[in-house]
């Protein structure tokens, strides 16, 4: 691991202030992301899991610099991009691309597929020649498994899986290094999900892409990720290699999350032990003191209520934020 990671996120916080009254006094802040650190190596896939509202997507948007961070630094390929100006950020905008959950919403309905894929090449002046752009757009279409003549059509004429392929082709047009995939398959049928996940893997092998793969589906995450970070209420509670995380989850939240996955055998499912978590996720407006998971944790001790656990390296790259681990 002598090589610097492609993406290093160090203790970033994204707080959304809440204003009240006529003079717009700040009365609090939603701490959507509250001290998240991780790094992604070149050619690697880091899966980011967690339940709705835990800050996964916010983290992705912060890395994309579409949300301003309250604190912390984001380094991309060794450069601190946290506070770069619009102009200075432009080359990085090309290298970091996002794949959206809803590809229909993320593609302009008034443009043909060919125009949509060619647009990033115009923006970043990758291919100044129009005919060459069209050719490349068609090549990209076949690269993601679509027919070249589909370039003439509009986005509403395609199915969900095809639209996601178009979204991927558009991102690839910029020859990016890092793809932030924000729930890219959760809006698709299960049969299509597998195809798109396989496409992601093929493209990664072919172009050496790096993925930050955000999802809530544990099976998808397991299939695609090299390492996995588990988020809870704006913080990472556990980060580990795929096998380690699925075989020996150390954090009670990760254990509960994995135990919630149903086993497709009714006999085992009926007899196996279930770790159940009670209650609701606390408000990110006012997170509990100490460990954020303690009000719902079946194992919580007094120390958990007062002292916030830090991510500690356990062994072979598995880090856990829990006093008991």
């Amino acid at each position, binding site marked *: 691991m002598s090589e610097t990671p492609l993406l290093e996120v160090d203790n970033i916080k994204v707080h959304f202030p809440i204003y009240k009254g006529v003079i717009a006094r700040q009365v609090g802040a939603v701490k959507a992301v509250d001290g998240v650190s991780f790094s992604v190596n070149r050619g690697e896939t880091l899966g980011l899991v967690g339940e709705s509202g835990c800050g996964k997507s916010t983290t992705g948007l912060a890395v994309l610099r579409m949300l301003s961070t309250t604190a912390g630094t984001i380094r991309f390929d060794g450069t601190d991009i946290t506070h770069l100006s619009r102009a200075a950020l432009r080359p990085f905008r090309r290298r970091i691309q996002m794949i*959206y959950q*809803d590809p229909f*919403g993320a*593609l*302009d*309905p008034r443009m043909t597929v060919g125009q949509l894929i060619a*647009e990033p090449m115009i923006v970043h002046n990758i291919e100044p020649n129009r005919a060459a752009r069209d050719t490349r757009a068609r090549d990209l279409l076949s690269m993601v498994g679509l027919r070249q003549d589909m370039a003439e059509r509009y986005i509403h004429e395609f199915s969900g899986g095809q639209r996601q392929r178009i979204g991927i082709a558009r991102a690839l047009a910029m020859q990016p290094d890092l793809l932030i995939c924000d729930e890219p398959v959760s809006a698709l049928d299960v049969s299509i999900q597998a195809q798109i996940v396989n496409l992601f893997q093929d493209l990664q092998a072919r172009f050496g892409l790096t993925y930050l793969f955000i999802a809530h589906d544990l099976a998808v995450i397991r299939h695609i990720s090299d390492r996995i970070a588990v988020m809870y209420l704006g913080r990472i509670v556990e980060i580990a290699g795929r096998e380690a995380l699925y075989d020996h989850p150390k954090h009670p939240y990760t254990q509960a999350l994995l135990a919630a996955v149903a086993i497709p055998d009714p006999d085992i499912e009926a007899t196996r032990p279930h770790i159940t978590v009670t209650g609701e996720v606390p408000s990110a407006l006012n997170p509990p003191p100490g460990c954020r998971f303690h009000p719902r944790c079946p194992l919580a001790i007094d120390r958990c209520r007062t002292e916030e656990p830090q991510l500690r390296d356990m062994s072979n790259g598995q880090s856990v934020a829990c006093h008991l681990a």
Partner: protein
Amino acid sequence: MSAAIEVAPVRRNAFLAGLIRLIREKPLGAIGLAIVLVFLVCGIFADVIAPYGINQISPVNRLKPPSARFWFGTDHLGRDMFSRILYGAQLSVIIGLSAATLATLISVTLGIVSGYFGGRIDMLVQRVVDAWMSFPELIILIVVVSVVGPGMFQVIGILGLTFGIGGSRIIRGAVVSVRENMYIHATQSMGATTTRVLLRHILPNIMAPVLVLFSTRVGAVILVESGLSFLGFGVPPPAPTWGGMLSGSGRTYMYLAPWLALAPGLCLTCVVYGINMLGDALRDLLDPRMRGSR
């Protein structure tokens, strides 16, 4: 779907192809286009077509009903209505189209700036629009005309400005809703310039309200101009505007010679109808989702 799937030919003759699509898919829109073109041609070639001069009076032939000699009859001074309608087309259609174009440009510019940038800019622009709209339009028109004097360009300018500021509210609403789409976010995150986002993504996606706004404004401008002419603040007589004819001799001699009101009235209806039909057809044709549907 067959129309949508067929591979578009090379854009050698995009205009002709568009025209053929208009006729095939939107026959009403094609009729609208034909009506507008007929009136435009009549206006432009009024000098050639008109059988008599606009101010050529013939006291013997006062208030004659329509006949082979005077197609639309004559007015109280014995002027040929058909000739006056033709010249009126020149004035009214030009005023209608140019004031509506000006109004639409102002609406789109103000609406996009206000809606897209939001925040303080939006606040500032919208309060100015509020202030403007809380004033009765006619009062503004009369005040300005009395200061700068009546005339065609004044009327175009004032009507364009008034309708433009009022309409900006509609465009702003459309921009605010389009701005929230994920594809705008996607384009911004790609590193596209604001100009590109505005011109390539926001503008095409608000074309539906823009076209509707434009086509309704043309009729409205022609009608308001007639109101102004009636009050003596429009294009001054004896210039033959349709509004002037309608509210002047048309109203006075309504029972004695109904053709004086009917002729300009019907022409006005036709033009407004034609432009509305054309606008609706264009709105549908420009929307890829409506391709192949009727």
